[in-house]
């Protein structure tokens, strides 16, 4: 009788149904948690929420003329995918290994050639506020494994103001309780002066992938475009971050 009951339970609670229940529970949490946050914030004194007052703008003075800079930009190698699901404990590149149930994250839209193409579409002059900026997007990776510790320029010559932006890694990531996103790990190397030692900054930036409507035959194309858009958004975020370092 016990065996019959267990067999019946197994028939009723299949892995798919258990996952459905867990996902439903998680969705319910996503509704409850923001409400709880709003209630908690309401209890915080108003003084604690006060925002700092921005400093008054500086007098309108003409900026001294600066020599234009030269940026060299390298894409990353093949992107990784990571997934942490209910029944997948931290898989890496499961799509390439044919792991059952591993989601398609459309990482092939970010191969090295595609990255180079997308990087060449970024408005670097706007990102650096330098209309005379000279940018060279390289088609392949730097090919070195010591970009962070390297103290010399990778490309000889160039002006006194020389910068390198090296995308060291690219990850398309997803988890059962978090949205899909593109994460960029990059190094900015700044050489101010012909013989100057580089000023390094390595960090990461992330942008969510806006999942399009799952209708229509062109869903795959729209999904790839969304992944590529998230990559460019993450790059722009990184540029803003590195401006402060």
């Amino acid at each position, binding site marked *: 009788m016990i065996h019959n009951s267990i067999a019946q339970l197994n028939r009723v609670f299949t892995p798919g149904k258990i996952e459905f229940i867990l996902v439903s529970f998680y969705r319910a949490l996503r509704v409850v948690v923001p409400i709880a946050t709003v209630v908690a914030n309401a209890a915080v004194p108003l003084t604690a929420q006060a925002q700092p007052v921005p400093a008054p703008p500086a007098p309108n003075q003409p900026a001294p003329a600066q020599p234009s800079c030269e940026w060299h930009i390298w894409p990353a190698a093949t992107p990784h995918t990571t997934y942490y699901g209910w029944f997948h404990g*931290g*898989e*890496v*590149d499961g799509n390439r290994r044919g792991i059952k149930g591993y989601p398609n994250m459309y990482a092939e839209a970010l191969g090295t050639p595609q990255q*180079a193409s997308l990087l060449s579409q970024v408005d670097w002059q706007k990102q650096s506020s330098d209309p005379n*900026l000279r940018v060279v997007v390289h088609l392949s990776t730097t*090919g070195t494994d010591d970009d962070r510790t390297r103290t010399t320029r990778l490309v000889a010559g160039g002006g006194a103001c020389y910068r390198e932006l090296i995308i060291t*890694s690219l990850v398309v990531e997803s*988890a059962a309780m978090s949205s899909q996103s593109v994460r960029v790990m990059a190094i900015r190397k700044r050489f101010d002066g012909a013989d100057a030692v580089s000023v390094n900054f390595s960090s990461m930036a992330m942008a969510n992938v806006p999942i399009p409507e799952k209708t229509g035959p062109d869903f795959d194309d729209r999904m790839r475009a969304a992944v590529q858009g998230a990559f460019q958004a993450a790059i722009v975020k990184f540029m803003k971050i590195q401006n402060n370092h």
Partner: protein
Amino acid sequence: MRKLNTTVALALGALATAPAGAQTTATPAPAPTAEAAAPMAPVCELHIWPAAKVSASTQGAGASFGLIGVLIDSSAHAGQNKRDQAFITAALDTGAQAKALRDIDLVALLHLPPSTVIVHDQGIDLKTDDAKRISDSTAQCYAEFVVRGLSYIKGMAYKGQMRTFLSIRKFDGAVVKTDFRDSKHDNLEVKLPKDGEDTGPATDALISAFKFDVTFFADKFSKKKA
């Protein structure tokens, strides 16, 4: 399966000259086609596979309150866990693992005969009962070093820990002569970075922990064998 050739120098992209304000794309120079005559390669091969599983878990107070608590805690840390998993994957990718293993001279640590090291660029799930070689190599003297997984755990009461799951299999022809699997953890002295923070210190800490774990594993393997 693709392999990373660690000996061929990569040609740097040629710099295209362009006027100020222009945005250009540099074309890589052709790779060198001829190589100088190399000394005879060792007959033994050591194949290395990087981690196929990387997990990251930060636990808060909710983890102490049963299944519901764990679910709430997982939900609260979902974004952080996703970020940490991606960061560890990137910081210890195939290239970084290969460099770390070169630095500590894995062949010598494992007391293997002089071997040609072949680093595969994709992780692999090593089945417990599979006695066949993972690669299609036919070398008589052959060994496999598999990083089975990397696991990062951080609780409320302790600093982050990274555990490395490793295995070494030595073959004599088609027969497995030695199969040793173990794991080792190391405490990290730095926190894993958030978006926008400097990733350098945490990258160094992860690589250092990885080297420590591999060295400990190799020592244990060598003592067991002796």
